[in-house]
């Protein structure tokens, strides 16, 4: 780990803390998820480090379990959007011609509808379960990844080394995964850090609106929703998830920045 900049180390530390907290939630959390352990909106104390929520559950416990749901959904949705978006984007760039036109115009069509409204419509007719949430979020987000992947791949596709591979008789699979993908990884990784945070915000928004994770399961958007009335009385419970989202966003992007720097400088990158 020598030579890793301080910013990346900080990012690593907090990202790891959030992810470990999420994975080992039942071991880390001091109380049960739906356990009522005190009065409504108790202030922070030795027994309840972040106080209690609107019906007297331990807020720290809710945050840890909520992080688990939020991070899990966001991660899976991001992965889904990257796999579908980049594979389709590369394919469009390599195929070109009318296939590219059809795919790109379809994506334009999807992007012309505001994502949140589209998601709300779909989720109001579908049963709201976690797999459905992941698929809806992942597919909607993949349109953004598609655009980026296609733009990057179109640039790489005209390079002489891709032409050399084509003249050798290589198939599309080799061209996409061995010639284009390694050179497109840097911008995609940078985008992934950003997209993950958008996914966290998106799932929180949906939960806040009541179409995301359903009670009694916790997630960060849901915690804001349950505690929002407290703000009027000066109870900060609703702000805790906001703080968590902010720190997670910053730390994930610190790591993404470092990965980006490393992959571009290592081996000289594309065109130096």
């Amino acid at each position, binding site marked *: 780990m020598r030579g890793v900049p301080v910013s990346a180390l900080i990012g690593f530390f907090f990202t790891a803390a959030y992810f470990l907290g999420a994975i080992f939630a039942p071991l880390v959390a001091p109380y049960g998820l739906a356990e009522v352990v005190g009065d409504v909106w108790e202030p922070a104390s030795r027994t309840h480090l972040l106080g209690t929520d609107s019906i007297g559950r331990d807020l720290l416990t809710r945050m840890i379990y909520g992080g688990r749901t939020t991070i899990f959904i966001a991660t899976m949705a991001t992965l889904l959007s990257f796999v579908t978006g980049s594979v389709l984007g590369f394919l469009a760039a390599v195929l070109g011609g009318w296939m590219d036109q059809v795919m790109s115009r379809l994506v334009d069509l999807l992007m012309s509808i505001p994502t949140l409204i589209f998601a709300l419509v779909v989720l109001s007719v579908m049963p709201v379960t976690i797999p459905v949430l992941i698929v809806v979020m992942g597919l909607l987000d993949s349109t953004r990844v598609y655009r980026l992947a296609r733009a990057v791949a179109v640039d790489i596709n005209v390079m002489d080394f891709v032409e050399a591979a084509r003249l050798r008789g290589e198939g599309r699979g080799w061209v996409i995964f*061995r010639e284009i993908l390694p*050179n497109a990884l840097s911008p995609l990784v940078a985008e992934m850090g950003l997209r993950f945070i958008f996914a966290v915000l998106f799932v929180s928004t949906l939960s806040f609106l009541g179409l995301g994770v359903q009670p009694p399961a916790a997630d960060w958007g849901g915690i804001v929703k349950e505690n929002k009335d407290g703000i009027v009385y000066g109870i900060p419970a609703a702000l805790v998830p906001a703080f968590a989202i902010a720190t997670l966003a910053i730390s994930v992007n610190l790591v993404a920045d470092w990965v980006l720097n490393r992959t571009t400088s290592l*081996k000289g990158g594309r*065109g130096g």
Partner: protein
Amino acid sequence: MADPLLKVRDLKIEATAYPPGEPPQDITIVEGVSFALEKGRVLGLIGESGAGKSTIGLSAMAYGRGGVRITGGEVWVNGRDVLKLGTAGLRRLRGAEVSYVAQSAAAAFNPARKIMDQVIEATIIHGRASRQAAHARAVALFSKLSLPEPETFGDRYPHQVSGGQLQRAMTALALCPEPELVIFDEPTTALDVTTQIDVLAAIKDAIRDTGVAALYITHDLAVVAQVSDDIMVLQGGHQVEYGTAEQIINAPREDYTRALVSVRSIRHEEKQPGGDPVLEVSNVTARYKGTKFDVLHDVSVALDAGQTLAVVGESGSGKSTLARVITGLLPPAHGQIAFAGRRLSPDLAGRTRDDLREVQMIYQMADVAMNPRQTVGTIIGRPLQFYFGHRGAEKRRRVTELLEKIELGTGYIDRYPAELSGGQKQRVCIARALAAEPRMIICDEVTSALDPLVADGILKLLLDLQKIENVAYLFITHDLATVRAIADSIAVMYQGRVVRYGTKSQVLSPPFDDYTDLLLSSVPEMKLGWLEEVIAHRKMESAGH
């Protein structure tokens, strides 16, 4: 000796390098360079890429490009040390007393503004002349530089004139404020030879008539010999030799200078035609999709086994398009291509794997012809695996053999392209082509991005490999010196047609057609006074007609 216009003493220039995985470190780019330039004289700075010649040239304006810092020495212009000038002083100096002509005029002009506005801009900003006077001076310069319709030339936009004209317009831009020193940074490198000679003559006349002093930066010694009074040879940021042009060309003292002067001295005995033809291109006409303009008209050439056919022409003559047609990237509209007696499918998809294996390609820009994320071993090994199914240790052994063939150590097998020099990259590309055991290799301007000495090495290697492997080359180039060095037969292309075709001795001996004559006489020769001879000869001929 009176105070010279420009005096540089013990110049030292540094930059900061950022090697991956290590802390940044300062590297010295130029060290211990001293010279003097008097009014009305021209000093040529010559060296390979990375020799620091542009950096030294720009130091006359006290300017360091992209993180480059002038850390030591003195640069005196008109009796002032410009390194000690403040921002205001430098602003008065640059563009007024000292001006600059960049390599690529096309990139240096703002495409959205008329040429005249850009040519007189610096003159007006510096208050060297009123708008009317600057305008008049620009028109006079246009006519001195033999630009067409000097009165209205400035009303055009940069995209409406040719590359050679734009380069001359840039010279007018630099001369318009009546500077005392002009820095020419490779002003003709990006031009075709037939255009280069006109620009060169125009620049030389303009320098003589205006009495301006000039620094002329180039990597081409034959070019610099035509315009300079003195020449400084640079290598790796150090001055190798500094003397009059005559002394450097006729009596070089240092080994490195001697190597530069005698570059392109490869001679190769022309092989007699005969043997089996590998490639026969018959009556090919081609156009790009969606255009109505034929890029190739009725082109027919043939190439015998183990021989070299050079396809020569200026940019836009269709020579690279011919390569695309042969490889199947651009199916021809008419005509056919036969390879070793069998007819090739016009498009790539219809060719068998063996068809593809037997025609390999080497590109001009080696750095974009290799995937930057693959090691040398992967790059060379892939054709071995793809065509012959070699894997593991067997593949590695073959790669090692190929690396030895291209005179690159076997230690390079795990390196990435970015860790290689330009010449080494081109060698790896040659090895990749050889790995397929082809019968023919298409070489598309393979040496034109390389320094002359490195290019010579590549040509020698190609010739040696031809003897061993009996591979035929289709050699596309605009450089006649290269053609003389390696070709067995030559096809001269002009505007999509083959205007002259035959063995090397046939094509290069008189009587010439007009275009071949123009092309041949435009190649700079390594002797003083060549430019004047050619220009005088051409004037006489046109007077005779």
